[in-house]
C-alpha cells in the first residue's frame, strides 16, 4: 500500500491472517509471560501496579482483564454489554461508524471478537485515567475489535489506550471500530499510544459525536515501528459550542506506512475544532491529513500540520483541507515541512551537546505538543513516550 496521490491502494490480503477467534485466548493476566508484561509496560499498561482504577486488556479475541474500581462508570466487554442493554444496539452500535464504510468495517460487522463498552454516568467526573489495552498475542492473527464509549451529560472521562503485540509476532492485523458519544457539557480525553511492530497492520475506524458544550480531546502517538496504519477518525460537533481537539505525534521509521488524520464536521454554531499534527520522517511513508468542514455560522477551526524530514528516503505528504458551507466561519490552516534548523543544532553544540544529542533534543522538542486540558498524569505519559522514543531515533 503506497500511493502518493492521497488515495492509497489497499494491498493487504486479508486471507493471510487467521481470525482471532480460531486461537485460544489466555484466560487471565497470569498466563502472560514476563516478556509480554514488559512489552505492555512499554505502552503504559503496568500490570504489576496494585491499584488499577480501571483496566481493560484484550489479548487476541479474549478479554483477560476488565477491572472496574472507579465509581461513576461502567466497564464491560462489548459482547456482554450488547446482551445486557437493548438500547446499546438501537442507539449507539454502528451509529457513528457505518458498517458499509469499507472492507474492514464490513469484516468487523460480520463477526466481532470483542472490545470495550464504557459508560460514565451523568455528572460523574472520573479524573484518574482509565487504561485500555488491545494486544495481539499470536502470530498472523486478525483482531476485530469494537469499542463504545458514552460520556453522559456533564460527566468527564480520560482514557489511555496502549496497543501492542507480543514480541514474537511477525505479522498481524488489527481492525478497531470505535464509537465515542460525548453528551451535553461532557468531556472526554482519549490518548492512544501505538507500538505495534514491524509487520503489523492497523485499521482503526473511529466515529465521534459531540453534543452541546461537549469536549473531545484526542491524542494519537506512534513513534515506533509499524507495518501500516490507516486511520481517519471522523468527529461530528453536533451541538452548539462543542469542541474537538485532535493531536497527532508521529515518527515514521523506514518501512512504516502511516496514513493518518482527522475529519471534523462543525455542524452547530459556535463549535470549535483544532487539528495539530507533528510528523518526523526517518525514511517511512507518511500522509498527514486534516479535513475541517464548516457547516454552521460562528464556528472556528484551525489545522496545523508540521513535518520534519530527517532522511532522503520516504516522504511526508501533508493534505490540509478546509471546506466551508456557510458564511461567517473562521477557518485556517498552516502546513510546513522542513529540515532541522542548523542554527539550533549549533546553538546547542556551543552549550556542550554533540551533534547527535543536539539533534535528538530538537526533534523531541518538535514533537512535544503541550495539550491543554489533560490531567498531569497523562501529559507526563506522553512526554515519557516521546522521551523514550528518542533513544531509538
Amino acid at each position, binding site marked *: 500500500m503506497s500511493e502518493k496521490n492521497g488515495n492509497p491502494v489497499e494491498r493487504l490480503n486479508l486471507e493471510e491472517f487467521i481470525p482471532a477467534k480460531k486461537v485460544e485466548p489466555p484466560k487471565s493476566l497470569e498466563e502472560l509471560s514476563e516478556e509480554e508484561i514488559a512489552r505492555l509496560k512499554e505502552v503504559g499498561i503496568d500490570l504489576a501496579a496494585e491499584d488499577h482504577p480501571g483496566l481493560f486488556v484484550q489479548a487476541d479475541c479474549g478479554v483477560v482483564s476488565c477491572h472496574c474500581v472507579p465509581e461513576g462508570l461502567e466497564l464491560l466487554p462489548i459482547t456482554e454489554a450488547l446482551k445486557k442493554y437493548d438500547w446499546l444496539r438501537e442507539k449507539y452500535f454502528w451509529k457513528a461508524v457505518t458498517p458499509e464504510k469499507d472492507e474492514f468495517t464490513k469484516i468487523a460487522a460480520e463477526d466481532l471478537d470483542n472490545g470495550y463498552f464504557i459508560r460514565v454516568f451523568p455528572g460523574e467526573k472520573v479524573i484518574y485515567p482509565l487504561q485500555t489495552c488491545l494486544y495481539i498475542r499470536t502470530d498472523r492473527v486478525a483482531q476485530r475489535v469494537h469499542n463504545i464509549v458514552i460520556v453522559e451529560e456533564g460527566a468527564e472521562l480520560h482514557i489511555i489506550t496502549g496497543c501492542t503485540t507480543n514480541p514474537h509476532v511477525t505479522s498481524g492485523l488489527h481492525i478497531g471500530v470505535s464509537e465515542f458519544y460525548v453528551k451535553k457539557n461532557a468531556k472526554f480525553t482519549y490518548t492512544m499510544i501505538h507500538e505495534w511492530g514491524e509487520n503489523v497492520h492497523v485499521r482503526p475506524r473511529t466515529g465521534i459525536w459531540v453534543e452541546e458544550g461537549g469536549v473531545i480531546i484526542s491524542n494519537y502517538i506512534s513513534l515506533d515501528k509499524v507495518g501500516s496504519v490507516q486511520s481517519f477518525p471522523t468527529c461530528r460537533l453536533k451541538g452548539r459550542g462543542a469542541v474537538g481537539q485532535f493531536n497527532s505525534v508521529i515518527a515514521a521509521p523506514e518501512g512504516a506506512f502511516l496514513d493518518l488524520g482527522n475529519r471534523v464536521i462543525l455542524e452547530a454554531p459556535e463549535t470549535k475544532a483544532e487539528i495539530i499534527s507533528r510528523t518526523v520522517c526517518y525514511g517511512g511513508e507518511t500522509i498527514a491529513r486534516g479535513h475541517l468542514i464548516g457547516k454552521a455560522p460562528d464556528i472556528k477551526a484551525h489545522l496545523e500540520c508540521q513535518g520534519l524530514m530527517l532522511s532522503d528516503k520516504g516522504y511526508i505528504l501533508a493534505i490540509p483541507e478546509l471546506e466551508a458551507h456557510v458564511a461567517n466561519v473562521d477557518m485556517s490552516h498552516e502546513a510546513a515541512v522542513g529540515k532541522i534548523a542548523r542554527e539550533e543544532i549549533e546553538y546547542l553544540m556551543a552549550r*556542550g551537546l554533540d551533534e547527535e544529542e543536539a539533534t535528538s533534543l*530538537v526533534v523531541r522538542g518538535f514533537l512535544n505538543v503541550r495539550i491543554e486540558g489533560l490531567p498531569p498524569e497523562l501529559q507526563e505519559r506522553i512526554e515519557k513516550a516521546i522521551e523514550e522514543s528518542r533513544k531509538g531515533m
Partner: protein
Amino acid sequence: MTQTPMLQVKDLWVEVEGKEVLKGVSLTIPVGETHILFGRNGSGKTSLLMTIMGFPEYRVRHGRIYFKGEDITDLPPYERARKGIGIMFQRPPSIKGVKLREMLELCAKKNGYRIQELAREFGFEKFLDRDVNLGFSGGELKKSELLQLLVQDPDLALIDEPESGVDMENIEVIGRMIRKLLQKDTHRPRQKSGLIITHTGFILKYVPADRGYVMLDGKIYCQGNPQEIFEGIQKHGYEECLKCLRRMETQLSA
C-alpha cells in the same frame, strides 16, 4: 614564570562563504582578564567570536587558536564548550518544546549548578518553564543567555553585544550577571576570562575591563586602555580611528 594565557589567537585569517572576514587577527587574554573588542557593525567582531567557538562555516585559512595552551583550532564547538569556552549569542535561536529549565540542566551536566537559585537571583524564575528563548524580549534573551552561561560556568566567556536591544532597567541586571560570570566581585586572583564585543561601549559602565581593542575591516588596529578607547570613540566616533589608521599607514609607507 609566566602563566599560560587563557586564550591566544595567532594571525587568524578566516573566511565565510568565500568572503574574507578576518585578516590576520592576533590577541592574548591572560587568565582572569576581561578584554573588550570595539568596532562598527560588520567589522568582523562576531566572526572572531564564532571562530573562537568553532562554528564550521567560519573557515580558518591561516593561524591558530590556543586555549589554556592547547591548540583547539580544529575542534568542534561542543568539545571547546566542554573544555571551558562559553558564548553568549547576540541573536540566539529559540528551541520549541524544550524548556529553559531543561536546557539549563543540560548546560549544568558537569557541575550541577543551582539553577533555581541563580534564576531567582536575577529575577528570571518565571521563564524556567517557558520554551528556550521563544517569544523573549531583547532583555529577556540576554538574561536567558547569561543564565545558561552562569550554569555552564566557562573559564572563558565570549559575550556578543550584551547591551544591544536592552532597556536601561535591564542593563544593570545584565551587567551584574556578567560581573558574576567573570568573578568581578570576588577578590583576585580571578580564574575567569572574558572577551566582550560592543559597538556602543556602554557595557563598560557596568563591567570593568582590562584591555580594549578596536577592530576595523577584519583587523585589530589599536589596543590599549579600554576606558580611553571608549572615550575616544564617544568623542570622535570610529571616523577618528580611520584617520588615525591612515596616519599610521602613511608613516609606514614613508
